[in-house]
Every structure is written in structure tokens, then in C-alpha cells.
């Protein structure tokens, strides 16, 4: 019986030795990147989207006082929240003393304390996309339109009006198909409709309008025709609007459009592709990633547009060659005081990305590993 006995002893040893431990709550990791800086802001949050289905949307924080980057802080600060922050963080903003993270595939807006990132509650909105605020209300775009009994049913999206004191929805305004970015200026909400679910096989099915909602009545006033598949919308100092079109990913390239606030129509367009942008004063920092069917690779471009003169004043804001290393630029922010430029690299979407900090001259100051698909910034003012 020697061999079987030995066998069972080894088996037993194995079973005992391989017992697994309980899974621990994620701890944030801190990296020192910079010296302490006084620049009017306490720090900034960086929301990582995480690939869809991975539930890996995470929150990072950069602290100006210590120069430290804190990676993955949400679970450490909110250890009791099942399944952490959620799936696909799509937008982040600070309003008052609260931090709002729009978590698209978790069908919610996470509401946190802006100073501590401690969870306060959540706003339930299916397929939510972007958020803006005005006079105590949050306005959130959603792809999830009304349910209709219709075999050819197609979903229109809406803008939800949320009371930020109660976190309850008080009203809803139906807009175009798959609304994305929104902007609030001059008593109006401007919503960029994309039609992203409709146009995959047929360009004509994309939306090409901006919905204009009157803030007072919360009703859609009119539509402004712009271009196919709109994405971002932003008002400049003068209240005029800069809208981006994704194009159809095929022959029609991405492009930047200008809506005059008085005429309420497109009066200018610039031949520059825009995946994302950041407006600082009159400088619109722009980058784009577009697929080329000629080279079968992503073509990445950077640029600065002067919103006053409508001129492309620069074709690069990264000047030290680091741009050659960036795989997929995905998020951008310019510090209002120091003019440091922050750019994220989403890499291959399924593994960690990078956050770069460049000086205003475009020289790399530092870079750091982030969560998966680092994307959206929110600057935290000093208290």
C-alpha cells in the first residue's frame, strides 16, 4: 500500500496548501511625480473608462500639494460598494462640492464628495453619456429613449434633468438619436446628436443635428443641421459653439464645425479632424485618431485652433517627439494657470494606459501608468 498511501498524502497536502485567500478590496497605489505646486487648484481626478464588460472603470487622483498620483482610489475610499465604481466611465465633472461620474454601462451617475471622493449616492440613468450643470440642476444625455411598441422601433435619446439636492429626475426632454455631448449657454442647452447606433452600415442614417433646448421650458426648440455623427460640443468665451463630427469612419472624415450663437446655424468649418478637444481661453487644443484605409493604421494628429480668428495656429503641441510614442491619445486637459498639457494614452484598451504631463512648450514633464482607458478629467478647485 505504499504508493497509494503516498499518493493520498500528497493529494491532501496539495488540497491544504492551495487554499485560497479571500479577495481584498483594491488598495490605491501612490506615485510621486512632481514637486509641490501652488496653482490655484487642489488637484484633478482622472476617470478611466475600462473596457465594456470588464467593470474596470476606476478613478485616479493627482494631488498638486504633494505632487503625488494616486491610482485607483475609488475602492479604497468606498470599500463597501459592491462591484466598485462600475463599467465604462464616460464623463466626470465637479459641481459645487460634489463629484459626478457618468458610468455608462452601469446605467448610473455616481455622486461623490468632491474633496474626498466618498460616495454620496447615485442617479439611475440607463445608457448615460455626458453631464452638464446649471442652477442646481444636472443635465445628462442618455441613449435610452422611450419604449414604444413598434416593430421598426428605433430609440431616440433624451436629456434628463436632475435635481442635485435630491438626486431625483424631475424632467426629461426627448432629442435626436444617441445624443452625446451637451453644452449650456445663453439660456439654452445644445445637444450633439450622433445616431451612432443607426449609421454603422449606412452613413445616411447617422444624425446630423444639434438639438436646442430652452432651459426655461425644457422643451426642444429647434434642430441645427451640422454634419453626420456629432460628438462633442463646447461654447467659447463669446457663447459661440464648436461642434465635432466623427464622420462615418469611412470616406467622410471627422471635422470641426462652428455655430454662430446669433444666427443659430453653422457659419464656419475647419478642415481638422477632432476626436477630443479642450478649450483654454481662446485656444482649442485638439487631437484626432483616424483610421486610414490606405495605410491600415491609425493616423494621429494634434493641433491648436484659435477660436477668435478661426485659424489653426499650430499642428502640434507636443514638441519633444513624445507624440510618436502615444498609441491612442484619449483624454486631454490644459491647466488654466500653468498651461501644462495633460494627455492620456489609452493603449490597446484592455490594459493600463498612461497619463502624460507636458509643459506649455510641449516638453514632457512626467508620465505615469493609469487604469484601463484613461479618459476624462475634472479639476478640483482649492477649497
Amino acid at each position, binding site marked *: 500500500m505504499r*504508493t*497509494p498511501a*503516498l*499518493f493520498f498524502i*500528497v*493529494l491532501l497536502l*496539495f*488540497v491544504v496548501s*492551495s487554499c*485560497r*485567500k*479571500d*479577495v*481584498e*478590496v483594491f488598495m490605491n497605489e501612490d506615485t510621486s511625480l512632481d514637486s509641490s505646486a501652488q496653482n490655484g487648484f487642489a488637484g484633478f481626478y482622472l476617470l478611466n473608462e475600462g473596457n465594456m*464588460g*470588464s*467593470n474596470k472603470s476606476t478613478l485616479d487622483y493627482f494631488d498638486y500639494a504633494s505632487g503625488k498620483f494616486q491610482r485607483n482610489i475609488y475602492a479604497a475610499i468606498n*470599500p463597501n*460598494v*459592491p*462591484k466598485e465604481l*462600475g*463599467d465604462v466611465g464616460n464623463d466626470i465633472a465637479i459641481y459645487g462640492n460634489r463629484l459626478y461620474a457618468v*458610468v455608462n*454601462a*452601469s*446605467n*448610473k451617475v455616481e455622486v461623490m464628495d468632491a474633496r474626498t471622493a466618498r460616495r454620496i449616492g447615485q442617479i439611475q440613468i*440607463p445608457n448615460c453619456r455626458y453631464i452638464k450643470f446649471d442652477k442646481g440642476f444636472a443635465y445628462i444625455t442618455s*441613449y*435610452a429613449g422611450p*419604449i414604444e411598441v413598434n416593430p421598426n*422601433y428605433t*430609440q431616440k435619446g433624451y436629456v434628463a434633468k436632475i435635481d442635485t439636492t435630491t438626486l431625483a429626475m424631475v424632467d426629461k426632454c426627448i432629442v435626436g438619436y444617441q445624443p452625446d455631448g451637451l453644452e449650456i449657454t445663453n439660456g439654452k442647452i445644445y445637444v450633439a446628436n450622433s445616431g451612432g*447606433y443607426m449609421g*454603422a*452600415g*449606412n*452613413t445616411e442614417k447617422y444624425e446630423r443635428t444639434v438639438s436646442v433646448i430652452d432651459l426655461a421650458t425644457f422643451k426642444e426648440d429647434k434642430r441645427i443641421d451640422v454634419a453626420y455623427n456629432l460628438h462633442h460640443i463646447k461654447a467659447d468665451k463669446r457663447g459661440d459653439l464648436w461642434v465635432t463630427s466623427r464622420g462615418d*469612419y469611412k470616406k467622410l472624415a471627422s471635422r470641426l464645425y462652428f455655430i454662430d450663437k446669433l444666427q443659430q446655424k453653422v457659419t464656419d468649418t475647419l478642415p481638422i479632424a477632432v*476626436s*477630443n478637444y479642450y478649450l483654454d481661453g481662446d485656444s482649442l487644443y485638439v487631437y484626432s*485618431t*483616424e*483610421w486610414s484605409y490606405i495605410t*491600415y493604421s*491609425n493616423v494621429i494628429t494634434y493641433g491648436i485652433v484659435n477660436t477668435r480668428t478661426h485659424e489653426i495656429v499650430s499642428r502640434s503641441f507636443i514638441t519633444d517627439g513624445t507624440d*510618436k*510614442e*502615444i*498609441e491612442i491619445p*484619449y483624454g486631454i486637459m490644459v491647466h488654466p494657470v500653468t498651461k501644462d498639457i495633460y494627455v492620456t*494614452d489609452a*493603449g*490597446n*484598451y484592455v*490594459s*493600463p494606459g498612461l497619463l502624460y504631463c507636458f509643459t506649455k512648450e510641449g516638453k514632457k514633464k512626467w*508620465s505615469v501608468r493609469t487604469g484601463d482607458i484613461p479618459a476624462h478629467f475634472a479639476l478640483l478647485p482649492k477649497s
Partner: protein
Amino acid sequence: MSNVLKTLLSTFLAFIGTHLYGQQTYRDSTRVDTGGVKTLRGVTIYTSVYKEVIPSQKLSGDNLKSLNSFSVADAIRYFAGVQVKDYGGIGGLKTVDMRSMGTNHMGVFYDGIQLGNAQNGQIDLGKFSMDNIESIAVYNGQKSDIFQPARDYGSSGSIYLRSRKPVFDSSKTTNFKGVFKTGSFDLINPSVLFERKLTENINYSISSEFIKSSGRYPFRYKRVYHKSGDIAWDTTAIRQNGDINALRVESGIYGNINRGVWNAKAYFYDSERGIPGAIVNNVWMRSQRQWDRNFFLQGSLQKNVLPKYDIQVNAKYANDYMRYLNPDPTLMHIDNNFRQQEWYGSVANKYSVTKKIDINLSTDFQYNTLNSNLDGFVSPKRFTSLVALAGAAELGKLKMQASLLGTFVDERVTRGNAASGDSAIAAPSKNEVTPAVFLSYKPFPQTDFNIRAFYKNIFRMPTFNDLYYTDIGDISLKPEYTHQYNLGFAYRKSRAGALLSEWQLQSDFYFNQVTDKIVAVPKGSGMYRWMMMNIGEVEIRGVDVVSDLAFSLPKGVLLNVRTAYTYQTAQDFTKRKSKELQKITYGGQIPYIPWHSGSVISSIQYQSWRLNYSFIYVGERYQNSANIPENYEQPWYTSDVSASKNIQFKRYRFRISGELNNVFNQDYEVVLNYPMPKRNYKIILSVEL
């Protein structure tokens, strides 16, 4: 057993931590069947039996029954070097990956002919129930038989599933079997089998099975605080939308002719299932549905035409329908259907040059089509011609096989739903010639000890989805190659009458390279747009160990223990544009491949009683090549037990068995956010006459 060997074995077992398990390699169906049926399954084939020179693992007969496996995928988990990706539940997707080369490199053969899926290259082995499966064999490289269709040479690894074939003892002309399974997940699973001897040389069989399950099971997620270990959160919920309704009918006719055999079979599978989806924050239930309808007709003829010349003819027609529905009004409404057809024919010719040397020439032709209502989809058609030239030689102590496979692929597209103005261009033709060499050396004439080695270079074609899927596909994709190098040994000893009546050990060391791996990469900006590209490079270094022990204990008690263990490093050497990002993923273990994995299958048999225990261990792994804490997946290990009793009552043979799976109620995930069932049970009643 000599002391030296005993020590060697013990050391081996101790060294590898004994999560080995074994498969039975050579003996199988001729073993005692407790039911008392004279099982001489498999009809004599008029070819010389060539002993295997290629590493293989096989489970059949009672060993297969002793596993509490519902689907083929459940059983395949017990093989060394094989990883199963299991999304959980009875209806959940289950795909197999051999030696970490990727699921598209596996060929799955059902009753001798490959199951195709030109659309995505994956065979969901969860759809194949164990009900009518008699044996499962897994081969690294290719099957050890040169007399086979060219397509059998065309995968990096192959799984052969064999369904039950009718066999009658002299007095009987009819067999009947009825089985009823029920248990957790509200499972109702009846099946019937009827076999009839039509003439002296022709047998007929029909079998049918129905599966209905709610797919509901409780699962639990829990996190504890760092250091203190106190519970941070602990949630138990019910898995929803994992229901399945499936019907399988298959029928075959098996004949003998002068110096040959033939068979023809039809297979039909129809199912509707829920896709349970990922569990993420605030979303604990999904509503996506999938319908599948698979039908195939296949036939095979093998005949010894001239004294030295054998011919084998195979043909198949397959028609597959799949519908995917996303009815969730808050998401993109999707209602897509995909229709695939395959026509296949093969002729293999074997010529025995001498008694020791055989050569084989096989030519196959295959035609695949895919149609879909997906927006922007072009309808591809693929013409594949395959020619394989192979030789086998037995030179005393040395046996060898070598083969050369030529693959010639030509594709066309029709416009399908592509918008006017969009390009609808077929991928360029591909002509590939790939070799394989297998050697086996038996140094001692009296000892059943073999050393074996092989090299194989093969590729997988980009699938229709890789090439043509709206927006994602890339027609310029090249095939994805694998290079396999293997060195191993097998030792076997039988000692009739001894306590340890039989034991065997086999082990293989291997190095595999996957080059031009087809990987989805981000395309353009945002919105989850992807593009397939040939950028991946993976290197796999591994060792598989399989041991098999059979004990004859006093009082007629038989104990069988099989253990298998695999150690693998499967590293991602994909070069990246960003050196800083490359540092994070370069050299990392590829997703979901554990370094250590293993299994144990054991059974005790006493008269009509049988007790089985099986154990699976999958070690720690990462969800991504970035091997960082956020991507860490815990090890998991489950123990399954079952007991069965055979009862003979007049002409009826009853069998009753009870199964308990995941005995220790472990909460685990094979794939991130897809929780697996906790402890569950099944009761099986069967009657044969």
C-alpha cells in the same frame, strides 16, 4: 515495480504537487462494462493498426461516465494542457484552448469529420452534451494516423468526439436506452436511444435528447479589508437569463462491406438560450437571447481496394443558423441572424509500399458561405482545397511520420448589405504549405517505454468575422501561424495479479510560438471601435504530466486514479508603439492561462457499485498580459463526487446515480464577471434493454 522506478515516481508526484491526473491512453472500450453488455464497439477496419507516435489523451467508456460532466467541455477540462473558458451555467459558452495557442487553433471532429465554423472559428463545446458521446480523444499536433482526410492535418491540436455506435451481441437485434437527468438549475433532460440490426451487415441508430433548464443559480461575490480581513461587502444573487431549451436528434447507419466499412449520419440541434452576460456594478441581469440551429449530414466509406491500397471517402453538408437578439430598449437594438453553409468532400488514398512503410495522399475540397442581415455585411464565400502527402515508417525501434499539407484558399464576396459606395472586396487568395514531423523511439524491446518528439508548423485562417465583419474586419489579414516543438515520453507497465495492476506515466515538454497572432486593436477614436490586425507574438513553454494508476484491491475492489498536471508559461511578446506601455505587457502571461493547472479523476468499483471523485485545479492567472493586481484572478478548484449503482431486473438493466458538484461550495470565476455555480447536484436514471 523496481525501487528505482518507485522512487522516481514518488519524487515526480511530490515535485509536481500532485495535481496531476490521468487519462487512459491505450485501453478503453474493451474494458469491462459494468452493465454486462458485451462491448466490442468499433467495427474492425481493414488497415494495419499503427501504434500512436503522437502525444494523445483519451477518455472513454466508464472513465468518461465517472466524470460529472454535462457537456463535452466539462469533460475536456480533465485533459492536460487544455484550458476551457467557461462563461458559466448549462447554456453558457464554453471554448477550449490547447497549450495556450488560442481556441481558433483547435480542430474539433465529430465522428471523424471536422465541425466547422467559418464565421468565428470557435466551436462551443458546451453545446455538445455527453449523453451520446462514447469517447473523447485529444491530440497535440494531429491524430496519429496518416490515413485521414487532409483537413485532419490542418489544426495545431485536435479533439475527436465519437458518438455511440450500435453493437449487438449475438442474440440481440435491438438495443434501447432511456435516460432521465434532473437536478439543480431546474434541469430536465430526458434522452432516448434506439439501435437496430437491420441486416447482418447494417446497423441503424437514432438518438434524441431534450434539455430544459432555467439556468438559475446563486452566486456570491465578497471582498474583505486589507490586513484585517473583515468583510467589506458580501453579495449573493441569482444568475438570471441563463435559461436554455435545446433539442438534439441524431441518427446513423453503419455498414460493413467486403473489406470495408461505411456509415452515414444526420445531426440536428435546435436551441434557444439566454445570454447571462457580465455582472457589473448596478447591472445584475441582462436580456440578450441567442438561437442556434445546426444541421449536418455526413458520410464515410473506407475500403481496401487492392492488397496494398486503401481508400477513404468522406463527405459532409452543414447548415447553421444563428440569431442574436438584444431586446434591451436602453441599448442598441440588435436582431442579427447569420446563416452558414459548408460543403465538404475528401478522398484519402493509402498505399503500403512495404509492410513497414505507408504513404498517404489526401485531397479535400471545402466550400463555405456566410450570409447575414447585419448592416454593412458583405456575404463571403470561401473555396478551400487541401492536399496532404504523408508517410509513416516503422524502422525497428524507430517509428516516424511526416506530412506536408498544402492549403489553397480563394474567397469571393457578394455585396450583401454593404451600402452602395462601400467597398466589397474579397481577401486575397492564400497558398500555404506547412510541414509536420513525428518521431517515436522505443529503446528497450521488453519495456513499454517510448520517447517521442514532434515539430509542426500550421496556421489558422482569419475567420469570416476577422476579414469581413462590418467595420471591424480587415481583408488584408494574413493567417496566424503556430510552431510547435515537443519532446516527451510514455511508460506503461501491467502486472496482472499485483496490487498495483497497471500504471503508466507520460510527460511532454513543449515550446510553441504563435506568430502574426490576430488581435483586436483600437481603431480610430472612441466608441469601442476595433480592428483586427496580425500583431501578436506569443511564446509558450510548458510541461504536461499524466499518470494513470489501476489498483486491484482485495475482494474485487478496483481503484483507478488518474492525475494530470500542466505547467505553462505563455508570454505575450507583442511589440508596441509605446515603449512605456510595452513594459507593462511585454513578457506577461497571456489572459486566463494559469501557470499551474491539474486534475484528478478517481473511481472505486465494487460489484455493481461505483464511487467517483474528481478534482480540478486552475492556478492563479491574469485577465490581461498586464500582470498587475487589478487583473489578478484567483485560483479555483472544485471537487465533484458521484455514486452509481447498477441493477439488473430480468432483461432490464437500470442504473441510478447521484452527482454532487463543487462539493466545497467554492465561489469562483473562470472568466472575469462571469460567476460560476456554487454547489449543485444531479440525479440520473437510466434503463437499458
